[in-house]
C-alpha cells in the first residue's frame, strides 16, 4: 500500500520551502493536487523542495510540484536532500513546462452561437442536397457510358449485388408485407363494420398495398438493409485506401463500385416491390377470410373488378426511383468516409437517415404528381 502524500509549506525570508513526504505518484496525488494548488504563494521568489522524507516520485508527482513552483514566482525548483532520480524527474518536469496556460477547451453556448450553428446546419443541408444531386448526375453519366459500352460492365459485381441486396431480401420483404397487409385489413374490418360495409376492405387493402405500402415498405427495408451495407462496404474500402489504390490502377471507382450497385438496385427494387405487393394482398385476403368470411375467390374477383390496374402501375413506377435513391445515397456516403472508424459510423447513420428522408419526400412528390395527372 503506497503512503499518502503529504506536504508542509514554510516561508524562509522570501523563499518558500516545501517539505514533501510519502509517495507522490499518479495513483496518489489525486487528493493532494487541489489543496496544493490552493496554497497562498504570494511573496515567494523561489521554492526549495525538501525531499528527505519523500517516498516514490514519478512524472505526475514531479509535474504538480513543478506546477506549484511555477506559481511561486521565479519558477525555479531547488531540490534539497533529493535522490538522483527525484532530481532528474524534477528537472525534466521543469524542461517540459507548458508554454502558456491552456484555454483550449472553451465552448460557447450563447444565443449568437446557437444562431451560428443553425446557420451552419442549414447551409450544410443545402450543400448536401446539391452534392447529392450532382452525384446523381455523375452516376447517370457513368451508367449511360456503361450502357453504350456493355463490355465495360462488371457483370460479376452486378450479379453479386443483385443476390445480396435483392434475392436475400425477399424473405424479409415478403414477411413484413404480409403482416402490413393483415394490419390494413384489420383496420378496414373494424372501421367499416360500423357501416356494414366490410366488403370494401378489399378495395382498401388493394389500393393501399398496390399504390403505396408495397413500394414504400420495400424502399424502407432496402434503406435500412442495403443502403447501410453499401455505405459500410465502400466506407471500409475508403478507410483501407482501397479506393485510392483502385484510382491509381486506372479503375474508376464510379464504374467499379457505384454503377453495378445502381443497376442492381434499379433491377431488383421493382422485383421486390412486386413480391411485397403479392404478399401484402395475400395478408389482406387472409384476414378477410378469417375475420370477415370473404373467401379468397370473392376477394380476388372484387379486387379485379373494383381496383383499377393504374394503382399497380403507380406503385411500380416509383420502385426504380427509390432503388436508385437507396443506391446513390449509400454509395455517396460510403465514398465520403474519411480515415477514422468514427467517420464510418457517422456516414452509415447519415446515409440511412438521408435515404429514409428522401424516400418519404419523393413519395409525397409522386402523390402530388399523380393527383395532378388524375390517376
Amino acid at each position, binding site marked *: 500500500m503506497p503512503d499518502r502524500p503529504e506536504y508542509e509549506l514554510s516561508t524562509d525570508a522570501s523563499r518558500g520551502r516545501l517539505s514533501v513526504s510519502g509517495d507522490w505518484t*499518479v*495513483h496518489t496525488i489525486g487528493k493532494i493536487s487541489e489543496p496544493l494548488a490552493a496554497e497562498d504563494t504570494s511573496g515567494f521568489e523561489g521554492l526549495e523542495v525538501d525531499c528527505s522524507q519523500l517516498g516514490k516520485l514519478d512524472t505526475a508527482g514531479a509535474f504538480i510540484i513543478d*506546477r506549484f513552483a511555477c506559481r511561486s514566482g521565479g519558477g525555479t525548483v531547488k531540490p534539497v536532500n533529493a535522490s538522483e532520480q527525484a532530481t*532528474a524527474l524534477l528537472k525534466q518536469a521543469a524542461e*517540459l513546462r*507548458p508554454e502558456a496556460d*491552456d484555454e483550449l477547451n472553451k465552448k460557447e453556448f450563447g444565443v449568437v452561437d446557437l444562431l451560428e450553428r443553425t446557420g451552419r446546419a442549414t447551409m450544410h443541408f443545402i450543400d448536401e442536397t446539391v452534392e447529392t444531386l450532382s452525384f446523381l448526375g455523375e452516376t447517370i453519366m457513368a451508367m449511360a457510358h456503361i450502357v453504350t459500352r456493355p463490355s465495360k460492365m462488371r457483370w460479376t459485381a452486378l450479379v453479386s449485388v443483385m443476390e445480396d441486396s435483392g434475392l436475400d431480401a425477399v424473405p424479409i420483404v415478403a414477411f413484413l408485407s404480409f403482416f402490413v397487409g393483415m394490419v390494413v385489413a384489420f383496420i378496414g374490418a373494424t372501421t367499416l363494420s360500423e357501416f356494414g360495409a366490410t366488403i370494401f376492405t378489399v378495395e382498401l387493402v388493394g389500393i393501399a398495398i398496390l399504390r403505396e405500402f408495397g413500394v414504400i415498405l420495400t424502399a424502407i427495408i432496402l434503406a435500412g438493409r442495403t443502403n447501410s451495407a453499401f455505405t459500410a462496404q465502400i466506407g471500409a474500402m475508403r478507410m483501407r485506401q482501397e479506393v485510392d489504390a483502385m484510382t491509381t490502377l486506372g479503375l474508376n471507382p464510379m464504374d467499379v463500385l457505384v454503377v453495378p450497385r445502381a443497376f442492381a438496385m434499379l433491377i431488383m427494387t421493382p422485383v421486390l416491390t412486386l413480391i411485397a405487393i403479392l404478399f401484402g394482398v395475400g395478408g389482406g385476403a387472409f384476414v378477410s377470410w378469417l375475420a370477415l368470411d370473404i373467401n379468397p375467390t370473392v376477394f380476388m374477383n372484387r379486387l379485379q373488378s373494383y381496383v383499377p390496374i393504374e394503382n399497380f402501375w403507380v406503385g411500380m413506377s416509383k420502385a426504380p426511383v427509390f432503388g436508385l435513391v437507396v443506391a446513390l445515397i449509400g454509395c455517396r456516403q460510403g465514398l465520403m468516409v474519411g*480515415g477514422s*472508424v468514427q*467517420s464510418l459510423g457517422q456516414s452509415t447513420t447519415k446515409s440511412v437517415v438521408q435515404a429514409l428522408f428522401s424516400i418519404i419526400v419523393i413519395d409525397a412528390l409522386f402523390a402530388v404528381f399523380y393527383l395532378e395527372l388524375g390517376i
Partner: protein
Amino acid sequence: MSEDIAIKVRGLTTAYGTHVVHDELDLDVKRGEILGVIGPSGTGKSVLLRAIVGLKRPETGTVEVFDRNVTDLEGDDLREVQNLWGIMFQDGALFSNLTVRENVMVPMREHTDLPEPLMKQLADQKLRMSGLDDSAGPKFPSDLSGGMRKRAALARALALDPPILFLDEPTAGLDPITAAGFDTLVRELQSALSLTVFLVTHDVDTLVATCDRIAVLGRKKVIATGPIEELRRNDDPWIQDYFCGPRGRAAQAGES
C-alpha cells in the same frame, strides 16, 4: 538475483490450435534494461509480447513480473498488474474516436482519481515528453502522421508511469530520420524514468541504437541472448545473416 529480474518467463508454451508457436521458452528481462527481441517473421515475437501481458493465454508455463505470477489473472488482480506496464502497439492502436489528449487520459481515468483539469495537464505533459507539441492534443489520431501517432501511442503507454514498457515494432513504417529520433526518445525516456523496456523489432538500427541486450527467437525458443557484440560472434546461420548481412553491416558501420 531475482531482484534484478523484471520479467521472468519460464517454460512458456503457446499454441494456436495445433500450431505451436513457443515450446518451453525461457526468457529473463533485467530491471532497467532495454531488451530487444528479434527473430524471423512468424517466430512469435508479438505472440510472446501478448503472452506476457496476458492477451494470449499460454498452454503451459508461467510469467512473473517483479516476482509476481501474472499468468491467468482475472478481474481486480489483472487490473492491478496492468499498472505495471504500458504497451505501445504496432500501429499505435489509438482510439480513433478520441482526441490525442483524451487517448492519453484514458488510462488515468480508469486507474486513478485525479481531477479532470490535472489529468489534462498531465496528458499534455506526457505528450511533450514524447516529443509532440501542445497543438497535437486536441487533434484526432487520423489527423496525425505515422511518426506522430507512434509518439502519441508512446505517451499513452507512459500515462501511468509504469515501470515496464512494451514496444511492438516502434519504428516500423517510419522514415529513417523519424525512426532515429524515436530511438533516441526511447533511450532518453528509459534513463529518465528508469524504465524496463521490452522491444520487439526488425530494425537493426534500432537494436544498435537502443538495446542493452538482445534475445533472438527461433525454432520455438530463445536461441541466443546477449549484447550485440556477443551475438555477432554467434555462429547460428540466421544470426550471422542478420547481423553480418548487408543491412546489419551498414548498421554496424553507422555505430562505429
